[in-house]
């Protein structure tokens, strides 16, 4: 009797689950009669991470109104943004037509043949084309170029500011020596001078690179030979490590810090300065979110290295995120149509309000009075871009960032000396380059 009951339950559930899978997704059909003479574009799928997905949805709705082309927006959890998208690309089934990819992945994906070069599509007069005059950041577009071919269009570009407390510091430090002095002055009572991003697997790389480049370090030369253990490189890491180990001007917990912890520390008045991404400006300026400091901070360019001739060499890392096309997409032209729309001013205008990308690649959107009012840091942001560099485009860039992070972290926590760490990083990058066939 018990057996019968269990058996019945089993059958019922099996049937249920089969039925559940039988429900087919509705076949997309154009909703409005398009005003243009061309037939409506075929449906395409866009992959984007959850924080910017609402913006893409709005853009997709507007696009469908305008052209009748249906766009399916696939949200991807931030934790698996690389895992899922790259898996989809390697599967070569065109699961996603348009993907959300940062510029530092372009080289390896393009080299592997996973991305659709856009140059031919750009030359096709039957297709809508981006308005190059509206591009706020041609440099951001160039970041998507690999071996003379363009693979995507950027959505936003981020970089870092030096945030500092105006009630404590009247003049922000210009050189790393001054930075250390100021930090030492304000490391007292419950507060520290500044913070670092020490966490693995990647954050520490993105923080340390600022110091590395401004000290004159070079990741690799034109022949792709790495030189991270040059005297400049080691000096940069020594300075970085000493902030924690020798001078103790940063909280002892910085090896566990990444964006949220650095944000919190400054917000709670625990650090007098911080080098932090520009996206934090909004949080710091909000009275609701940062009641302790919202009216007591300002931004400055990152400190730089004082050169023998007296000039100050500054360098700050930037991060560009944008959209690319799957080389195995089944609807390349229609995907391109949406790509142009999404990364032009019509699509981009949704990102600052409904997404998390603020500094978008459109002059029209950036100069909109509402935007300007909501983001007083914009004019300053443009100045900082003059100091900005991006990770160099090589097929090993992603792994190089990880290798640098591991070694920098080892030095920061005293496992290795800066010299050892840089030597090991150099050896690791050298191995990567060899394996990738650079020499």
């Amino acid at each position, binding site marked *: 009797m018990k057996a019968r009951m269990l058996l019945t339950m089993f059958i019922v559930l099996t049937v249920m689950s089969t039925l559940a899978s039988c429900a087919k997704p509705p076949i997309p059909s154009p909703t409005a009669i398009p005003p243009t003479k061309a037939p409506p574009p075929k449906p395409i799928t866009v992959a984007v991470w959850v924080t910017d997905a609402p913006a893409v949805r709005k853009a997709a709705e507007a696009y469908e109104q305008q052209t009748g082309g249906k766009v399916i927006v696939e949200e991807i959890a931030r934790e698996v943004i690389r*895992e899922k998208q790259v898996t989809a690309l390697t599967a070569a089934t065109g699961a996603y037509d348009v993907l959300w990819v940062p510029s530092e992945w372009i080289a390896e994906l393009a080299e592997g043949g996973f991305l659709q070069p856009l140059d031919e599509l750009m030359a096709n007069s039957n297709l809508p084309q981006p308005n190059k005059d509206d591009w706020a950041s041609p440099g951001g577009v160039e970041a998507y170029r690999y071996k003379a071919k363009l693979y995507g269009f950027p959505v936003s570009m981020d970089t870092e500011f030096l945030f500092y407390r105006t009630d404590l510091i009247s003049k922000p430090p210009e050189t790393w020596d001054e930075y250390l002095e100021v930090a030492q002055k304000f490391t007292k009572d419950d507060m520290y001078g500044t913070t670092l991003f020490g*966490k693995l697997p990647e954050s520490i790389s993105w923080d340390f690179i600022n110091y590395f480049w401004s000290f004159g370090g070079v990741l690799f030369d034109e022949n792709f030979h790495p030189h991270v253990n040059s005297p400049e490189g080691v000096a940069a890491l020594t300075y970085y490590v000493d902030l924690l180990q020798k001078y103790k001007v940063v909280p002892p*917990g910085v090896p566990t810090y990444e964006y949220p912890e650095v944000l919190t520390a400054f917000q709670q008045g625990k650090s007098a300065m911080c080098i932090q991404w520009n996206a934090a400006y909004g949080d710091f300026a909000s009275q609701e979110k940062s009641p302790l400091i919202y009216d007591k901070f300002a931004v400055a360019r990152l400190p730089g290295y004082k050169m023998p001739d007296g000039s100050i060499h500054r360098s700050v890392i930037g991060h560009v995120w944008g959209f690319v096309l799957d080389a195995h997409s089944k609807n390349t032209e229609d995907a391109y149509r949406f790509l142009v729309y999404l990364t032009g001013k019509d699509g981009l205008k949704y990102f600052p309000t409904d997404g998390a990308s603020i500094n978008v690649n459109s002059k029209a959107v950036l100069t909109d009075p509402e935007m300007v009012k909501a983001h007083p840091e914009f004019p300053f942001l443009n100045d900082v871009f003059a100091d900005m560099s991006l990770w160099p485009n090589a097929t090993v860039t992603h792994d190089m960032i990880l290798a640098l992070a591991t070694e920098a972290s080892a030095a920061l926590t005293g*496992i290795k000396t800066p010299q050892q760490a840089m030597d090991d990083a150099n050896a690791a990058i050298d191995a990567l380059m060899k394996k990738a066939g650079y020499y």
Partner: protein
Amino acid sequence: MMSRRSWRRHISAYQFLAPILLVVVAMLVYPLLYVSRLSFFSYSLSQGLNFIGWQNYIDIAKDSVFHIALRNTITYSAAAISVELVLGFVLANTLNSEFFGRNLVRAFLLIPMLASPIVSGIMWRFMYNPDFGIINYFFKSLGLPTFVWTGNPSTALLACIVVDIWQYTPFVMLLLLAGLQSIPKEQYEAAMIDGATFFQQMRHITIPWLKPMILVVLLMRTMDSVKVFDQVYALTGGGPGVSSLTVGVYAYFKGFRSFSLGYASAISWVMALITLIISLLYIRSIKVPE
């Protein structure tokens, strides 16, 4: 030649096994073969597939990071599992007898297990925070030294181990408790009539009956800790340096971040092999009549 009776025995056995064999073969055999084949190739996003024979395995043998990860994994497993086993057993034993509020206590003790690895990673990260975390606060109030738990190479792995113990002791307890509950009461009654003490009963009744379950728990926990990824990643990212890098995290980075799929596949097989050897050692030493 086999008699009709023994033929029927084999067929009957496979009738019981048929459903799972069907599902496993349909779903898992292709991935397993895929992974095995891939381990003999080198793969990278930029260069695609290249046949390299045993080179991946040779590289693993020479890979100093893998050695560190292996060492960390062994430490992690040994420390976590021994505590979980002992604590789980004691708890199971305590909960085996009826007392006021027993069911409630049992339900509450299950709660740590319900937190998904991601959730517990975040929760513990908050508690381990050196500046506003509750753990350092307690330590300071008790006069103990405070640490940067997840940021100090000497404590990072320990921090992960503590979380593992917190999360999986209920797992061990639940399985052992179920095992204890299937020991017939008559055994204990007979022993008490014979005047056996608590410890004698433990040695001669409880533990022998529980052996199969203890073995299974050891096997499963060992395999889980070798595969562990989510908590370690959330807490330390494998760092600082490589001080808390475990084999599971290393395989994930190689396979799903760097997409060196060939190398990651080879690591998976090496992990499987090592775990199998350990499992066989367990099975031998616990001497369960299989």
